[in-house]
């Protein structure tokens, strides 16, 4: 019951936050000097054709009304233009890209499997590697293993993803010919091909983020291992593995989970550089294209979607937090 109330309160908060974000995005959009109608009006762009294009897209209305129409579209869908040329955008309609002649909702949904495949796989990999490396470093503090792991993580933290990605393609793709260097195969069509195409992007992303997690975990672990309750656990006669793996790790994970949720949330909104390097048709690539084409409805749609993912991740983190740390459960 308490949980239900918590969830409903948080959901309401999420909706309010999203409304504010959409309003700000919209305001930026209106303030921009570029005119979407101008861009799609073709050449030569006579004033009549421009006015027609404006009316068709709904840009002839005051911006507050445009915003309301946008919100209305999310709930009920909307139709641009009239007659034979009319374009219908079904609910939930987050705008219509006149550039790509498709609804933003559909465009995003199309790209989700790609981006989510990259993001979730990479995130699990880096969480596993990062936490494991951090725990080992902390427990074997000052040994060669610790120093090696920390040196490696310094390299990981400072390496840019495009460099690591390109080097990875060069080495594993071209020189060793082990994995395909670009493209995406849907999981439903060819699971092995899916996995094979994703291995390299996963490793590149994981390598970079695992470094951060290894440092975070190591620092937390060293702190927790100095706590009184660890001494108590040892004084009980527990094996060191249990002391570290149960008593310490559970406390270490609390801050790690917070960072992980936010990282995963923002990565799900599109791994822009990695998608570009590996030519993966994900959300990041879609956003890059949209920016390149000044496809404003699409930019707004993707921005909102990314914001939604981050807010959702935040919410999930809070729920997990309540499970991990009983002190915040109430």
């Amino acid at each position, binding site marked *: 019951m308490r949980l239900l109330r918590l969830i409903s309160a948080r959901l309401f908060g999420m909706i309010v936050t999203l409304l504010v974000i959409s309003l700000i995005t919209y305001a930026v959009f209106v303030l921009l000097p570029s005119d979407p109608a101008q861009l799609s009006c073709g050449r030569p762009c006579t004033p009549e054709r421009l006015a027609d294009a404006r009316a068709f897209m709904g840009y002839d209305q005051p911006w507050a009304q445009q915003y309301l129409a946008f919100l209305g579209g999310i709930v009920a869908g909307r139709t641009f233009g009239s007659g034979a040329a009319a374009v219908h955008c079904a609910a939930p309609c987050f705008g219509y890209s006149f550039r790509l002649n498709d609804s933003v909702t559909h465009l995003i949904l199309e790209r989700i499997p790609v981006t989510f495949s990259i993001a979730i796989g990479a995130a699990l990999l880096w969480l596993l590697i990062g936490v494991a490396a951090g725990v080992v470093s902390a427990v074997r503090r000052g040994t060669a293993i610790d120093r090696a792991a920390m040196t490696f993580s310094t390299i990981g933290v400072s390496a840019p993803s495009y460099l690591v990605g390109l080097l990875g393609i060069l080495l594993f793709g071209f020189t060793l010919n082990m994995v395909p260097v670009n493209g995406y195969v849907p999981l439903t069509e060819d699971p092995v091909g899916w996995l094979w195409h994703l291995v390299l992007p996963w490793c590149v992303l994981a390598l970079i983020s695992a470094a951060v997690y290894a440092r975070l975990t190591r620092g937390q672990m060293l702190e927790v291992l100095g*706590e*009184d*309750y660890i*001494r*108590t*656990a*040892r*004084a*009980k*006669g*527990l*094996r*060191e593995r249990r002391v570290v793996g149960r*008593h310490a790790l*559970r*406390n270490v994970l*609390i801050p790690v989970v917070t960072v992980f949720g936010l990282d995963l949330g923002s990565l799900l909104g599109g791994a822009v550089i990695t998608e570009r390097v590996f030519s993966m048709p994900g959300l990041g690539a879609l956003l890059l294209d949209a920016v390149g084409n000044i496809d404003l409805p699409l930019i707004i749609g993707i921005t909102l979607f990314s914001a939604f993912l981050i807010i959702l991740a935040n919410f999930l983190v809070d729920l997990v937090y309540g499970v*991990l*740390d*009983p*002190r915040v459960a*109430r």
Partner: protein
Amino acid sequence: MTVSSTEPHLAKATRSPLLAVAGLAVSFEVDGDTHTAVHDASFEVHAGQVLALVGESGSGKSVTAMAALGLLPATARVSGSITLAGTELIGAEQGLLRDIRGGRIGTIFQEPMTALNPVFTIGDQVGEAIRAHRPSSRSAVAARVLELLSTVGLDDPARVARSYPHELSGGQLQRAMIAMAISCDPVLLIADEPTTALDVTVQAGILDLLRDLRTRLDMAVLLITHDMGVVADVADEVVVLRDGQIVEQAAAAQLFAAPRHEYTRALLRVVPTLPELRLAQPKPPETPETPPAETSAGVAPAVLLRNVVVEYPGRRRGQPVRAVNDVSLHIDQGKLVALVGESGSGKSTLGRALAGLVPVAAGTVTVTGVEVGRATRRELRTFRSRLGIVFQDPASSLNPRRTVGASIAEPLSLHTDLRPDAQRRRVDELLEAVELPTRLRDRHPYEMSGGQRQRVAIARAIALNPALLIADEPTSALDVSVQARILELLRSVQRRFGFSCLFISHDLAVVEQLADRVAVLHRGRVVEEGPATTVLRAPRHPYTARLLAAAPVADPRARSGQTSRSTSCKRRKERAAFRHERVKYSPAQSPRPERPLR
């Protein structure tokens, strides 16, 4: 052990000892330097005996205990021998040490709140201790957990087992810790400062429990403490440690009656003691009358509280919590009033209300003529310049990145327009006033001892010649010998500068030495208020009497007549009453003369 004694427990000395420490030496390598923590320590603990290792912080008492458990950090070099029933523990392999830890030796630690893992339930943690040594079925473990929790006197074991540490009180947690420690029927219980973090009335219960368990389970107890009162209460044998060396070991009665070593005598001397109790007049507890607006001398009091209520918002639209409830109090100019109470009694909240740091829900707080609740931001700022505050832990109340001089000078640069050289002179003056050499000006807090840090905190608090000093448990983080000197300093500084002082403490003995008047706070209400001598010698309110009775006294004879060692709740009251009496009769022949502070 060469001490001869007629004490009955020493009859067992002819048997081989349970724990024998011989020639134990522990040193730590820090950055190439070798620091010796324990030097050539030898003592024995016999079955059924309570041996107290006494010393101040850094004396090596905890290190000795951790050496027995094999739990010293990797930087420690250990030599000598520790045997448990003939088994050598120094250098023993990990498997054997694991069996001994929790299996043969149970351990309880100082601060139960941090000694238990916050993310697991009590039942889980106690059960884990059982399973580590005696693999058994889930239901058997659960049943044993409940049995243990009721053994240690917890009222609703099922609820306690389901609770997380933050949901229980310090006393409940320490009982749960004890349940965990005795879960596998250990032959030896190591209790490392088991009551230091607890209120006196709770402490009395825990000490009773330890005594009771020792008899019932025939365990030996190695008690580590700095508190001579606790030693007198439970110990049979005492080993006094100083800088890693044993300076004296003797039967408790003998040690208190005739301490042989100068250090032991010094330790006993600095223990604050409670005054002799007169038989309480059977007057009904009176509610403290509303203080007069003006004292007899016609001078307005420095602090005047009228019917003050402070509330904290409750959880999730619940009822607000009344931390301070209808308190009226006054502090006359230049007087020191002590506010005494246990944790949660609202004493710190009241101190904060005085400083205008928490809003007052009802009533008025007037300090040096300013009504704190109604003052504007600007008035509050001026008012705070007339106020000094000293907190409990100087290690955290001083900024670690600033030099001591800079910390003391900060209020000067905030509230005065002294030039840098004048500020510097003032800082030197203040350092001298708190009896610190002026060369310490450029030191950082971490380069100083706890006592020195607290002196710095006092210097900072009096930098602006405050009209009122609020001292919130200023000595509870310090060793007894240091504590005595800080109290002395506080008194002399107060006389010299003539400020009024609100002294917040849980320690009645400390209060006795300092205060002109005492107010006893219980659950947010002042239950008794009056001149220190009256309140502490002839308390009228039963709660004050209970507090006084629970405070341990550094004299083992005080408990010699005690027959009942049961922990049953019903008997606690009788025992409190009994203690009340023993305090009344015995201290006249106390080995230590009552000395006023110099």
